[in-house]
């Protein structure tokens, strides 16, 4: 991996919107190498979408610069749009077209000939299991189906870099699995560089090679999931359901992280696990689980 060229070089990126007083992005720097599967995590409003829009040249940063394969994206917009396939978070732009028309139209916009666009349309629809919806108008699709269509549209033209803003949003578990599998294949078999924003840290952990965590517009953590989890390895995550609105009384060495709608998440040192097991019968709590740190814990820890 270290020998591969940089796809993205993000240097000192800062952005402040006129409408709000807070910074959307503050002095963000990181690099993404060719063929890497890079994830961006962060709570709502952390500045993830602003960051990737700057990486696409859709928003101009106040400070800093973004290079794509060594070229400044603002001075090379044609190169950027040819190289990067972008799946936005917001509503689908081609709602009045049928599924097959939307994919074909997008392939055409990406410069494919009529024949090649038709071929890629059929390939993408099959790949995402949308063949049976081919003649349905996009606005009549369910939220999940439309999300898959957006992904199909993004894949047209086979751009070497994919930037995906919450690609598994609104998808049911089996469709989510299908998308993660597809993305892994695109990354490993075709060598595509993938940058994605997700809130689904647990599922993303299976495919992401490196992750950046944003908080209040700043990049607070960057590294491989294993590296980021290392400081939390001495911690154990405890979760269970507790009837009642308030967290149950737990020993001092157990740190309750959240208690929402009866779902309690707490952390304790792995050295204290046996002590807790002696003091309390945790199995009496419904849905009791205990596990070592996940990427989600890292995310919770930083966010």
């Amino acid at each position, binding site marked *: 991996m270290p020998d591969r060229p940089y796809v993205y070089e993000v240097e000192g990126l800062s952005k402040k919107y006129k409408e709000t007083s807070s910074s959307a992005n503050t002095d963000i720097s990181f690099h993404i190498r060719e063929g890497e599967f890079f994830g961006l995590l962060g709570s709502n409003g952390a500045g993830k979408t602003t960051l990737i829009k700057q990486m696409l*040249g859709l928003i101009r940063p106040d400070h800093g610069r973004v290079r794509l394969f060594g070229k*400044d994206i*603002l*001075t090379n917009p044609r190169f950027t749009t040819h190289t990067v396939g*972008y799946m*936005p978070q917001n509503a689908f*732009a081609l709602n009045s077209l049928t599924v097959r028309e939307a994919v074909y139209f*997008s392939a055409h916009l990406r410069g494919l000939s009529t024949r090649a666009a038709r071929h890629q349309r059929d390939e993408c629809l099959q790949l995402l299991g949308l063949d049976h919806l081919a003649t349905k108008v996009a606005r009549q699709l369910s939220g999940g189906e439309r999300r898959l269509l957006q992904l199909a549209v993004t894949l047209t033209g086979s751009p070497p870099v994919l930037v995906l803003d919450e690609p598994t949003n609104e998808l049911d578990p089996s469709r989510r699995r299908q998308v993660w599998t597809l993305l892994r294949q695109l990354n490993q078999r075709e060598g595509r560089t993938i940058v994605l924003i997700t809130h689904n840290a647990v599922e993303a952990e299976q495919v992401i090679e490196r992750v950046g965590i944003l908080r209040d517009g700043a990049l607070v953590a960057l590294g491989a999931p294993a590296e980021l989890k290392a400081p939390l390895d001495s911690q154990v995550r405890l979760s269970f359901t507790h009837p009642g609105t308030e967290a149950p009384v737990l020993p001092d060495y157990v740190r309750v992280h959240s208690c929402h709608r009866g779902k309690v998440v707490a952390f304790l040192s792995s050295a204290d696990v046996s002590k807790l097991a002696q003091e309390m019968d945790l199995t009496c709590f419904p849905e009791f689980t205990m596990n070592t740190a996940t990427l989600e814990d890292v995310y919770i820890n930083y966010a």
Partner: protein
Amino acid sequence: MVLTGVLAPVVSLAALGLFARSSGSEASEYVVTGSVTMAILFETQNKIASNFSFMRNTGAFEYYAAMPIRREALILATLAAFSLLSLPAVTVTAVIGSVLLDIPLHPSPLLPLCLFLALLPSAGLGALIGSRSPSIEQASSLSLATTLLMMALGPVAVPPALLPEALVWIGHFNPATYASSALRASLTGRTGGAALADMAILATFSLALWALTSTRMHWRARPQRSTAKRS
């Protein structure tokens, strides 16, 4: 589609036609071509404004901006689509006006070019309003207000002799005045130097609005001057 674009011009035809009949055939010609201009404004400017505003608010601009296409191509494609869609309303209004007010139509060979040039400034204005308005409601209201003002300010549907001098003077800055005048000439087959001058002015308005729209429309970020020099 035809119905909505025809309704306002035909109502205008009927209302103004009542007065125009007693003022002579020239006034009737103004009413017919003014109503055709109104059909263009309703069908092209208002619909393009709504469409661009819709694209801006639904993120469609982002979809197109992230594709390897130029913003000018998107503007042209939208203008072409809505201009074509306005043709039925334009034709129906012209024919109804001709029958109602007894104005014989003798379309000149310059009519297609004249129609094209009459459509362009209103389409450009619609694109500008739509791409800059923060909401679809605002874009529609602003475009409608502009349409009404363009119809009222100048000899568009009423001969200059029947208008206050101030309105005639303001009309020199209104593209609808030239669109109506050029259409009047090419629909009645009287294309001469004046009609060509009108068309030249319409072309100038079109170029100015094109330049304004293509630079002011939200699209990809542009490099700052200092960044551009550095690269």
